[in-house]
């Protein structure tokens, strides 16, 4: 199939998945207790039954759940209205946007570092196969896989704060809380160090493994022999022919990892009290702030789905064979 058809199919799939997420979101949060009216006006506000009924009509809550209320809700979500947080008395959307940047910073940095080091180590391990470097790298990856995210965070937190004096939580010191982040970069950097390190260590192993097995597979292909026959040195062969081919599965892995990275962020933000979406999600869970929980879930799920789709699109441009499928 042509590239266009392939992309259309991917787009269709992503949209369908988003729709499913929307339905899940809607259904689940209807099951959760709490009058939807409460979801809008807050839990502790007292209102009389008449006012409550009037509000029901006003918010369209007297209409049938499907399809009317569902469509209404979709409409609201599309306009960015995700309800009001019970615990923070603010529109959910505003809260989410405020914290989104922090999480993106953490995840982005962690991913970039783990991809960078993972690819290099994988290349090295594959090239120097069966040497101590390779064995060491493999062992490391295995153990990293079996290590719970949050536990590694706890260990690094303990070690980092005790021996290196790094902060134990938050994204900035209390003194800098109200300042915009870009003005207090050294402080942010100190706070980001440990959480980012945790993420990097955990995901590095995966990228290293994929890169290694990819390189081994590629180095066995005929065109590598052709390249050597042309008179290229090992290094030239690696850089000019092997690397690009070997990187393709890495791109796929990045896409696959997106969902897991978000999960990892939830744990890490919990351990390091890092003020991002992950911590928000967990707080909403413990405080039973359902509008916030619902909004956060929606944002996280839809982001990952869209990012996945983008990664798929990117892949089709990297691999010329995809056109021919």
């Amino acid at each position, binding site marked *: 199939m042509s590239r266009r058809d392939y992309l259309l199919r991917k787009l269709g*799939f*992503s949209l*369908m*998945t988003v729709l*499913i*997420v929307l339905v*899940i979101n809607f259904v*689940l*949060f209807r*099951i*959760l*207790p709490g009058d939807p009216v409460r979801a809008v006006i807050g839990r502790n506000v007292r209102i009389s039954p008449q006012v409550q009924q009037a509000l029901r009509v006003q918010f369209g809550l007297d209409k049938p759940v499907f399809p009317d209320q569902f469509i209404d809700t979709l409409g609201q979500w599309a306009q960015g209205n995700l309800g009001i947080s019970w615990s923070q008395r603010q529109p959910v959307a505003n809260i989410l946007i405020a914290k989104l940047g922090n999480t993106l910073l953490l995840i982005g940095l962690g991913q970039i570092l783990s991809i960078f080091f993972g690819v290099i180590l994988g290349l090295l391990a594959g090239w120097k196969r069966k040497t101590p470097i390779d064995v060491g790298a493999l062992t490391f990856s*295995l*153990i990293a*896989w*079996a*290590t*719970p*995210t*949050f*536990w*590694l965070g*706890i*260990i690094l*937190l*303990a070690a980092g704060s*005790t021996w290196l004096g790094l902060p*134990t939580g938050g994204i900035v010191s209390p003194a800098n809380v109200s300042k915009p982040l870009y003005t207090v970069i050294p402080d942010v950097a100190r706070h980001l160090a440990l959480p980012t390190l945790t993420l990097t260590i955990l995901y590095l192993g995966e990228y290293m493994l994929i890169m290694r*097995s990819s390189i*081994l*597979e590629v*180095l*066995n292909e005929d065109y590598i022999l052709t390249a050597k026959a042309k008179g290229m040195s090992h290094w030239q062969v690696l850089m000019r022919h092997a690397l690009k081919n070997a990187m393709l599965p890495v791109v796929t892995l990045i896409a*696959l990892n*997106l*969902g*897991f990275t*978000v*999960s990892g962020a*939830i*744990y890490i933000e*919990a*351990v390091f009290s890092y003020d991002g979406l992950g911590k928000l*999600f*967990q707080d909403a*869970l*413990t405080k*039973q702030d359902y509008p916030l*929980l*619902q909004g*956060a*879930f929606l944002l*996280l*799920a839809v982001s*990952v*789905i869209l990012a*996945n789709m983008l990664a798929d699109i990117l892949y089709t441009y990297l691999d010329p064979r995809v056109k021919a499928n």
Partner: protein
Amino acid sequence: MHNLTEFWRTFRRNKLGLLGGFLILTALLAAIFAPLLTPYHPTDVIRDANGIGMTFAPPSAHGPLGTDDAGRDVWSELVYGARISLTVGFLAGFIAMFVGSLFGITAGYFGGWIDNLLMRVTDVLLVIPDLPLMLVLVATLRQMQLNVSPLVIIILVIGLLYWTSTARLIRSQVLTIKERQFVARARAIGAGNAHIVRKHILPQIMPLIVANTVLTISTAILVESGLAFLGLGDPTKPSWGTMLNFAFDRNAVTNGAWWFYLPPGLAIVWVSLGCVLLGNVLEEMLNPRLTTHHLEGDENMISIAAGQGSD
């Protein structure tokens, strides 16, 4: 592998597989024989001469892993915690295996739109981020006030979300088996679908299902620990994850009580690693389709040159 002795001989040669088996076995034995291995019951508070609970006491002759924030023996908590962690992991793993096999066999055997539909479902599940979805599901289920232990909820949620890799693997195996002669023959003599699946397909893929389940269990144990850490476990029946939740929430870190927050994590790594090693080795041995040609490139070429393969 056609018989057990041949299997055992090959397995014995693989050191990593043996290591994995050892790790799992020790954990299992510890869990089963917990009362024999622990001087205290995990809920006992250890008190000093004045009757005051010895909180955050470092490891000593009495307690090899010291005490926790309430004065309870960490070692005892650890060993008893194995029961919870392993049980939840195993049960969740089995549910995932069951669902995954069901989906995989159905999709592979019937093909067509059934296959398409089931694979789409699998794909959708894979794209949605796992932890947020699980947290939301757990929150919903708990709010429904079903009067079940939080552990049951966790087992269900993990089992219902982590079957995808099993489904894919089983499906591709069924696809190959489906093409083989004996299936066609069975159909020709009028055997029904259920019969064919039960008699011809299931026995062939059973070993692979077992191997894959071991891997799934390792994931389940890791996920359970995470959920427990976030506070979704049963505080009255602490798993290793719950222990870490206690440790973190009750300031073991700031108090420097490494004996409280290190061991449970190590235990998780221990068992997880064991399952991964064992599961990978089993899968390699039992899956005829797993090619490792790219990992033995030189050897492959030379065996061709040496006349052992076709050129």
